[in-house]
């Protein structure tokens, strides 16, 4: 093995030795886990429709049930194992939003139930709600000008 002298050579060396970028495998896992979570949602949706709920109500029921399952799996410490395997597959569906609330809620329990659980709950979900809701208000106001 020839000695490594320049920084560029070192970077090339690291590139060659580090494992092949697992991005394809990551994408594949994200694809099927994400697809599966959506399909479970679709089955719940179909069942709600079968029971006679309308589209809006069915969607809400789907969200609540998936969030409930994600919260349970987070509490049982299973969700982070799925997350490690599936990456965006469990992050991008609504389950990721649920996990982002439940996980810090459990983690910061020791800091108390008000500022610990209640406050830290929104470490990740806070920004999501801030930007999501603010944009929706802007969209609503813009709509007013186009009626």
């Amino acid at each position: 093995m020839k000695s490594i002298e320049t920084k560029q050579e070192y970077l090339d060396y690291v590139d060659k030795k580090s494992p092949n970028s697992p991005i394809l495998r990551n994408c594949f896992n994200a694809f099927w886990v994400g697809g599966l979570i959506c399909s479970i949602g679709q089955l719940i949706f179909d069942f709600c429709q079968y029971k006679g709920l309308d589209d809006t109500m069915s969607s809400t029921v789907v969200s609540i049930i998936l969030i409930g399952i994600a919260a349970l799996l987070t509490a049982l410490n299973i969700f982070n194992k799925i997350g490690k395997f599936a990456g965006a597959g469990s992050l991008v569906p609504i389950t990721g939003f649920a996990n982002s609330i439940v996980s810090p809620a459990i983690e910061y329990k020791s800091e108390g139930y008000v500022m610990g659980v209640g406050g830290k709950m929104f470490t990740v979900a806070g920004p999501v709600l801030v930007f999501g809701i603010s944009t929706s208000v802007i969209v609503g106001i813009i709509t007013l000008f186009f009626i």
Partner: protein
Amino acid sequence: MDFLQSIDWMLLLRCFIVGGLICIVGQILIDKTKLTSARILVIFVTTGVILGAVGIYKYVIDFAGCGATVPLLGFGANLAKGAITEAQTSGLLGAFIGGVKASAGGIAAAIFFGYIASLLAKPKIKKQ
């Protein structure tokens, strides 16, 4: 069973594929950029609001059902849809009420289940 017969299997397949593809976009963002997961969630929800507002996302939902509504894009699109509908019926007040109203179920569920989970679960001990 009647329920099994009522399932639209083609829709379920489209749901699986579209939902999966949206997750691949997220995975590429994770692998190819240095964005934290919080930023990725923010990007997805905000993009969803915009796609919902310009009316594109409706077609994705028609095509893929929960494959489009379950990812956070759908959460955003739902915020936009609520804000637009409510703004049309009750004006400026509606612009403020609509978005959160449409997604209240999910938000309340996440907060409630989160709090319950924190009461029941023990924080895991961090390995050094």
